[in-house]
């Protein structure tokens, strides 16, 4: 055969076999340590955040998963080629053709899907918070370490162009703020479950409740035991930056005091004006507030003696690029990503502690060594929550 002769079957023919091969899903060479193929990624949760991740990581997309078939169809259009599609994330985790997963589901799923991904040997990019209880957050950290996974979380703080060092000896607390939590939602709104949505699977480990459009998709954020309000949503980014600048590590007991009034009516029950003070050794170190302030509306931070900064907590394009690049790099090198679960654990815990202190209506002292509240058996009963159905950590 002359050097550049190739069989017509391969390229030049228009036979049925040749034509079908055009659209066949190519099988990449087997990944092996050292000879690393680009990671094949499964996307679990395809709402706004999931689609944003998908767009940035499109060439890696190998599986799509959502409990809403409409969202799956939308993502399919975006990918434009054949990949595994399913409503059950366990199918993604069971696939040997998937190396890593992006988890962008409602909060009550985060810990379960993250722990199961680790157990299945998948690396992960995880939306924050790590979980909805301190027990869930700790389980994620433990699983990542025990199963040797590379886990990046969506926190912008480690990719900030600001110097990556805490402030020296601040005089007074750092403050972070966000807008008040909205009120609304109709507790009695009866509506059929949309045909595209698997409601039982959307709820997963969360307590069963009837479908209500005031809950899903977006509005679960404003329900205390599901989304926990802004402190566990976008405000978490501000909390992360402020905690870092205040050098507030979870390495010694921390006393948390929270106040705020719940909405007078409606299904959404997060306090509209949550105000949390984090203190150590009697000194206020960090304040989270949703009280109306004269500062800009978007979440931000304010140093003890400086001006408010609404940009510090917003991830820009460079930070976004750096976050994905860091994750992909670490998957290859097995290094620990910059926004790993240790950073996310601190931020998640600060948010959860604020909410729990508000829930019990008295100051709580968190003992990180014991992973428990000091002298408060009642609060310690909120550390874990029995999951529904077959789900477990």
């Amino acid at each position, binding site marked *: *055969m002359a*050097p*550049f002769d*190739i*069989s017509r*079957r*391969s*390229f*030049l023919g*228009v036979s049925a076999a*040749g*034509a*079908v*091969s055009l*659209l*066949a899903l*190519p*099988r*990449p*060479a*087997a*990944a*092996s*340590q*050292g*000879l690393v193929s680009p990671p094949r990624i499964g996307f679990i949760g395809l709402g706004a955040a999931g689609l944003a991740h998908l767009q940035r990581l499109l060439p890696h997309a190998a599986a799509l998963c959502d409990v809403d078939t409409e969202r799956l*169809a939308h993502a*399919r*259009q975006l990918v*434009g*080629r054949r990949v595994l599609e399913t409503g059950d994330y366990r199918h993604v985790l*069971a696939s040997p053709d998937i190396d890593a997963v992006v988890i962008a589901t409602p909060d009550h799923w985060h810990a379960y899907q993250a722990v199961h991904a*680790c*157990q*299945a*040997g998948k690396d992960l990019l995880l939306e924050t918070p790590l979980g909805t209880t301190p027990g869930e957050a700790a389980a994620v950290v433990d699983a990542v*370490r*025990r*199963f*040797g996974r590379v886990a990046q979380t969506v926190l912008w703080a480690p990719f900030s162009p600001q110097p990556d060092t805490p402030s020296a000896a601040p005089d007074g607390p750092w403050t972070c703020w966000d807008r008040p939590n909205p009120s609304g939602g109709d*507790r*009695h709104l009866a509506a059929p479950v949309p045909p595209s949505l698997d409601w039982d699977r959307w709820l997963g480990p969360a*307590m069963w409740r009837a479908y209500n459009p005031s809950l899903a998709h977006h509005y679960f954020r404003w329900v205390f035991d599901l989304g926990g309000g802004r402190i566990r949503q976008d405000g978490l980014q501000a909390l992360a930056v402020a905690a870092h600048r205040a050098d507030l590590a979870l390495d010694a007991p921390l006393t948390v005091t929270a106040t705020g009034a*719940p909405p*007078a009516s409606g299904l959404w029950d997060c306090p509209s004006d949550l105000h949390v003070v984090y203190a150590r050794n009697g000194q206020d170190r960090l304040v989270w507030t949703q009280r109306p302030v004269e500062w800009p509306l978007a979440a931000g931070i304010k140093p003890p003696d400086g001006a408010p900064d609404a940009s510090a907590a917003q991830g820009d394009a460079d930070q976004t690029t750096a976050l994905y690049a860091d994750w992909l790099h670490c998957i290859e090198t*097995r290094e620990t990503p910059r926004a790993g679960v240790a950073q996310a654990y601190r931020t998640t815990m600060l948010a959860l502690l604020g909410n729990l202190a508000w*829930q019990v*209506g*008295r100051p709580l002292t968190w003992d990180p060594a014991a992973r428990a509240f000091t002298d*408060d*058996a*009642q*609060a310690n*009963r909120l550390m*874990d929550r*029995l999951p*529904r*159905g*077959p789900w*477990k950590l």
Partner: protein
Amino acid sequence: MRGVVIAVLTFLAANSALGQDPAPLAALAEGYDNADAAQQTAILRALEQAAFAAGPNDTEEVAQAFVALLNERYPEPVRRQALDGLAVTAGPEQAAAMAALLDHPSLGQAALRALASTPGSAVTEALTAALDRLPEPLIPSAIHALGMRNDPAAIPALTAIAQSEQPARWAALDALAMLGVPPHQVFPFPRDASTTEAHTYALAVLRAAQARTAQGDQRTAEGLYLMIAGSSNRRPIIIAALNGLADAGSEQFVPMALGYLHHPQAGAAVASLLRETAMPGVDEKLAGAFPSLQGPGKAVVLDILAARNAPAAHEITQQALEDADPLVRLRAQQHAGMTPDGPQLLAALDASLRQRDPTGFAEILALLMARAREAELEGLDAALVDVAGGTAPEAFRAAALDALAERAPRAGVSAARDLLDDPVLGSPAGRAFAAITARHAPREQAVELLAAMALQSPHDDVRVAALAHLKEVGADPAEVSRSGGWITDWRMPTPSDGDWVSLDQWPPRVDQTGAVACLIAEAAFPVILHITADTPYRLMLGEQTVASGTGAGSARITLERGENLLRIEPAAAEQGVVAAIRITNREGVPVNLNTGADAVDGQPRLRLLTREDHANGD
């Protein structure tokens, strides 16, 4: 009624010592049914706050008040809220009242959750006694609750379920593991276990070992970790077992980890674990094991010792400079700050290939390629061709083909060509072949081959590479494609002016709005349309459907003189379709669709309206 509720709520707000006088709870509950929506919300929130109002330690009275609200004369939302209150206030005395609701169709789950967080062995007894009568969906959750409670009193009941044929047996096995009972003490690993069951079994061993560690029984925990590390071939299980051994300070950790350094899936993570573990004595153990390791193992241990700043790293590196294995010598040279020459690198590449060391191979190949970008490196192309066309595992051959795609040596053409149809290596082979073709084939032949690859390769990356190479050889990819009969210019109608599909997105994906191509015929022209689609499609000529189906198909049509509008759309509204269409004459000869191009002998001229025509107002 409204006045009563408001008065009670005012009282609640003012009196944080509600728990000392729980009577208002009943008054609130009584008013629920006649309250409006806002008042109902307020009542439930007041009940919620009441659970915490008495303080952390004085919950008995308020718990009793919540028990009173479980009575069925109260509305269901109130009873549910009372169960939530009991979840943080109840003691063993309230266990029976909560357990009585376990089989309630809508309150059972809340009752279970409340019981799960209530301390005391009376709760364990109530839960185990209820297992037989629980609704099916609650059983796994109740079993899990028994595991979470960490009360050994549940072991007999859980063991009975685990040893039965009930669907919940695997949940019981896991709950037993949470209590420190390893699965092999319950039943032997079933030979017919499904993949999921095998995974559950292995995770249960790990969970039992964790529980034993928490119970202070390090010896049993170590035995369990050793057992699972020695018997599993699954990466996450191996790593977790090794982590457990390190946590337990086991003497077996380092030997066991060294044994897994070259596990195809776990090796990198194991190396990372050895680098980062803080377990005492690891440096000495690694240094002691070094002389007995094979080449790739030595290379990795050199890296680990260096990364750990181990005291023995320098001495071991000096030893390794004299090692018989070129791969080890190379790694030692790097750690000693020396620069290996080309022949040394090639020898190390060969050694890593023979030893099937993918990490070393990739690393050395990267060094060689970097060196070759700066100066000609004799022997590299021959080595790459040998690997690509040889019998090494696919990952090695794929890496060699990737390197050939960059270097494009003429010597690589046969190796790349012969692998074009390979299901695994077809992609890197295609890229290599495209690169070599562009550089060395006669231009006319190169254009034909690259156009075929750009339009027909099953691999996205090959199509993209071929398009780029077509431009490199001075050809217009769209023109070449149209000359081969490919209908390349499709317009997707949009409210603005329509989106055109370009070859960069080939083959085109069409959503439910469909896509249109315009063929302008000089005269009536009988042709065949060859269609390939991944999902059901419908192809129309004007208003008439001329083909439909999925996969590969064809349609024999006659184009009319003048404009002929072809429209492709997905057959199912919610699906898109990826489709490629080529046009030939009735003898199967591709029709040249380029404007003004020479007609095939005896046939009328046909051209495709292009994006450029459209832009020019044609």
